[in-house]
């Protein structure tokens, strides 16, 4: 049995009196691409924030690559090989797109050997269709381009686990399918992925497993294909998406 890359046990997070995460436990194995789904405000981003060390937890433990990172600072967690993106990325205005990408990989590269993905900056620029704006100020990108740049920058860090917060929101459909290819390739090189997403087609294509959060609790942990058969998931999250999705096929 392979050991878990990321293991979350009994995680809880409260802001003042409101419990956003109540009791969340799940794990990510190396080579997995796990989708983290759930209705708006169910606590997905909060979960990412706590796991990546941006917010302190209220209870529970998080282990990553065999270490307890429950209270570790962000940079220590990143050093272990966990890199995340933001749902609403904002970009510097006195740095170019290329510089931001460059900043993705630090000289010290984290204290632990990163995965062997190692994309070159120009390759990333091509893959994410940013080559023509490589010299532009990063803040002058369009909404979707910023999203893409943030994902590309995180990939450039060669993390062991890449945590993406809605990587496709605002991204053109044709690029979404390219993204599936890029992420799969990266995982094939030894990485793993935890993706918060709302695009069911993307999830179905990409994910090996899905976790569904609702009001701070996990209500499903299953294969992507099983989601629409789960009445709780349909009621809380998918709604009539199934009909439309069905129409698409």
């Amino acid at each position, binding site marked *: 049995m392979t050991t878990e890359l990321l293991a979350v046990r009994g995680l809880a997070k409260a802001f003042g009196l409101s419990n956003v995460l109540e009791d969340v436990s799940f794990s990510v194995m190396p080579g997995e691409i796990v989708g983290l789904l759930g209705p708006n405000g169910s606590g997905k981003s909060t979960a990412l924030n706590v796991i990546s060390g*941006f*917010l302190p937890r209220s209870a529970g433990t998080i282990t990553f690559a065999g270490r307890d990172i429950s209270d570790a600072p962000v940079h220590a967690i990143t050093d272990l090989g966990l890199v995340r993106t*933001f749902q609403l990325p904002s970009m510097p205005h006195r740095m170019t797109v290329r510089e931001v990408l460059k900043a993705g990989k630090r000289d010290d590269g984290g204290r632990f050997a990163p995965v062997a993905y190692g994309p070159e900056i120009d390759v990333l620029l091509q893959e994410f269709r940013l080559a023509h704006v490589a010299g532009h100020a990063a803040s002058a990108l369009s909404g979707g381009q910023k999203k893409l740049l943030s994902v590309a920058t995180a990939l450039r860090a060669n993390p062991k686990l890449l945590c993406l917060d809605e990587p496709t929101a605002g991204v053109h459909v044709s690029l979404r399918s390219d993204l599936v290819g890029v992420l799969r390739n990266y995982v094939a090189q030894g990485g793993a992925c935890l993706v918060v997403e709302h695009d069911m087609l993307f999830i179905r294509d990409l994910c090996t497993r899905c976790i569904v959060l609702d009001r701070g609790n996990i209500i499903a942990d299953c294969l992507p294909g099983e989601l629409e058969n789960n009445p709780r998931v349909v009621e809380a999250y998918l709604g009539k998406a199934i009909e439309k999705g069905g129409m698409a096929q």
Partner: protein
Amino acid sequence: MVQFIFDTLFRAADLALIAVALSAVYSLIRFPNVALVQYAVVGAFVGMALQQQGVPIVPAVLLASLLVGGIAQVFNAVIFQRLLRLDPAIALIGSLALSMVLSAGFLLGFGPAAQRFSVQVAPATRVFGVRVTEMQVLTGGLTVAILIAFALLLFRTPLGREMRAVSTNPVLAAATGVNTARVTGLVVFLSGVIAALGGAMLALRGSVSIDMGTNMLLPVFAAAILGGLGNAFGAVFGAIVIAAAETLITNLNFGPIVGQDHVFLPASYAPAASFALLVAVLLFRPRGIFVSEVTRV
């Protein structure tokens, strides 16, 4: 004790108006406008100049404040709006530069000597064992009245909400139908008026020299920041805290403790006390006492 409270309150009144003005503009245009302390000096000087021209004191002060409000607006339109588009820090430097230019103007226009309004000064009378002067009561009362009026304007009209909207997201504010230029103009005008009134009140209690602005700068900032920049009425509280700290350090007699008649902390440390207090508060409340902004990742 009562004397201590009065001293504190009067010192606070010195700072409060300017600090409130500073905080109010900050709340809107997100940069601490250093030149505001100079507006206070302009207010006092112009008021005196008008009085010397024979204008009675009340209209002189009012006229001067309105004028300063206008000047504040002009500077804001010509200088700060443009600098803010670059960076708040740049705007801050710009306001420092403007302060220097204004200082130079004062030096040429008014000379280095201190100036005073020609008003009758009477010795203090004792009220409940506390010595207060007429002018203190008058200016103190006026200060409170001005603060209340400003508070009403902020909390009883949509202006307060619109100000915060413009400050957090001017683009969106315009898309919501807020005339950002008008709101900004109004607030800048009011801040100029209040700062000028603050300067005039100071001048009425004592005298004003061209260095007053520079000397007031840090205490005023300390007050505004303690209360939380952008929280206009936090600034009043901040002013009281600063005043109390300064008063305490100059008036506390350690003599009895060490078995001597009179042992005071050196008065020359009084300004350091307020700054140290500021730094200490910021260590624990990084956004001042009254501001608790939710920043989410």
